[in-house]
């Protein structure tokens, strides 16, 4: 019984996801089809890949723009260039935060400005060509079932969980997130960890950008912008604490699926798609409010 309780407590986000899907199926017959579920996985891929960093949306946009310009020439080289750009941006963010002690919020905000500007110079209006061969790989379907998006989510989830739980690096990330000072005292190279986190975040965003470009079949200077906000909600909803140091990758993935389903349901019940902005905003405030409430309660208990 105790064990069941802890499982429930830890995996509550998956239970919410299942309840959410069940209700949706009752409301809308469309929701029961495989293609809808596939659509959800396709929408969720960019959300899963993007982490907590204000420049992520812009990196995804930039990568989508680069993809639409470069992919038609040489696919292999294009992907290498895009990933390199992702690494470089992450390095700049990381070095700024770790070595120059710039507040991460301001650092990534400044990067957001610069990258957005570069994206609109590369692609002033939406367009460009994404070769079918790459689209066929990234959006590969068997019948109605979108195989690659599904696999990407599973692999990302396993990779993230493995990295955070089984590797020393993962433990160190938790330590730095929880309390940088004690982490430093215990001999962790805090600067190095910070730089690695920013590089990872930026590279994942660049991959997400390639995926977005395939999905919308073009490049667009604001293609990734809305994912910034989605990633915020998802990370909080998935149980990663605002203050850092606590968080589960699996929770993040379940939350991403919930948000992707939400967008889908709003389309089905036939109300203006602008409502999802309102709903997402309210959800974010509620989720972080509830989290902070419990956090404070726990703190008081500890005292």
């Amino acid at each position, binding site marked *: 019984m105790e064990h069941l309780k802890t499982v429930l407590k830890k995996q509550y986000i998956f239970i919410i996801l299942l309840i959410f899907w069940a209700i949706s199926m009752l409301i809308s017959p469309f929701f029961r089809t495989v293609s809808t579920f596939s659509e959800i996985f396709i929408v969720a891929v960019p959300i899963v890949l993007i982490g907590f960093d204000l420049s992520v949306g812009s990196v995804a946009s930039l990568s989508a723009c680069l993809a639409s310009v470069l992919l038609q020439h040489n696919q292999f080289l294009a992907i290498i260039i895009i990933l390199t750009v992702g690494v470089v941006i992450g390095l700049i963010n990381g070095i700024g935060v770790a070595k120059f002690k*710039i507040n991460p919020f301001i650092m990534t905000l*400044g990067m957001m400005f610069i*990258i957005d500007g570069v994206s*609109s110079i590369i692609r002033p209006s939406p367009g460009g060509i994404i070769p079918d061969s790459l689209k066929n790989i990234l959006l590969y379907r068997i019948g109605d079932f979108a195989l690659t998006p599904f696999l990407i989510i599973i692999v990302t989830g396993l990779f993230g969980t493995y990295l955070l739980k089984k590797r020393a690096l993962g433990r160190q990330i938790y330590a730095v997130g929880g309390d940088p000072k004690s982490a430093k005292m215990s001999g962790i190279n805090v600067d190095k960890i910070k730089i690695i986190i920013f590089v990872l975040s930026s590279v994942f965003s660049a991959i997400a950008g390639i995926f977005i470009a395939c999905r919308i079949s073009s490049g667009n200077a604001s293609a990734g912008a809305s994912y910034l*906000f989605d990633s915020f909600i998802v990370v909080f909803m998935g149980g990663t604490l605002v203050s850092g140091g606590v968080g589960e990758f699996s929770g993040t993935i379940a939350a991403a699926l919930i948000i992707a389903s939400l967008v889908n349901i709003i389309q089905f019940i036939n109300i*203006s798609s*602008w409502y999802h902005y309102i709903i997402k905003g309210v959800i*974010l405030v509620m989720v972080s*409010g509830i989290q902070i409430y419990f956090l404070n309660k726990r703190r008081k208990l500890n005292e």
Partner: protein
Amino acid sequence: MNKEKLQQFCRNNLQVLVIFGGLLVVMAIGGIITPKFLAVNHIIDILYLNSILGILAIAQTLVILIGGIDMSLGSTYWLVIMLGAQFMKGEFLWGPMLICFLIGITIGFINGYCIAKLKIPFVVMTLAMMVIITGVLYVTTGGGGGGKSAEPLTQFSIQRILPIGDFRGIPVRMLIWILFTIGFSLILNHTTFGWKMRALGSNIKAGRFSGINIERVQIVTYTLSGFLAVSAGLLYLGQARTPYPIFQSGAGVGASITLNTIAAVVLGGTFFSGGNGGVGRTFLAVVFLSILYSVLNMIGLHEEWQVIFNGLIILLIVGSYSKMRSKT
């Protein structure tokens, strides 16, 4: 002795001196490209166009001064413009204006309440507010574009006073920007509330121990930010008469102007002052940015380049400051 004092002064006002230097350089470049650039009327025109940014930047300064940030500033501004035009329909003035002020103040109050009482992180709260307002704006007006500003409001916001000979006069809108700057500067320096805001900015814990009602200061500041967003919105509406519909691009409506206000505040030096910055410095920063953008436009570097410059300015200033601070 005197030399030491001078050095002390320079050190304390380094940022202001740097902006002044930058302003002179940029104006010189503008003057070399076209001598007409330096004509008083032209400079006044540039400042007239940017007085909206100036008023919004005052709001951002207040919020940043108490250690927060308001990402929903630009969206509140656009919401008021679009709803105001729809309510006014070219004839009604006072009713719609009152409604607009109520909306803006309510938005600011909700921000402040959730941040102060529910302890939601300010970035999360105001970003969520930005997205909610974006949704509301499109659901209620479909992106705006309808309606028309009331004639008295239009007359008021494009009015110029004291024209002498060739000089076309000082725009009322610019005057309001200057008045707001002076007013808030007085409040920050000479009232108890202003001192409380500064105390909060320099050290939130010390502020609490010294008996300041932090929550109230936070709520009032965010509410003031909403009030200023409405003022700026109405002044813009007057000039635009019928606003163009806006197409949502980026993270939410008004994100770009919000980012411009943050650039101005960071440039002005309020971000690191620990309660020492102020609206006067931001005023200077907005003047510098307006002239800079105008010169950039002249040499053919348009909006996207201005965005890049904003980012570079923020990173350079913050980077050098943070490096200096970590050394001492």
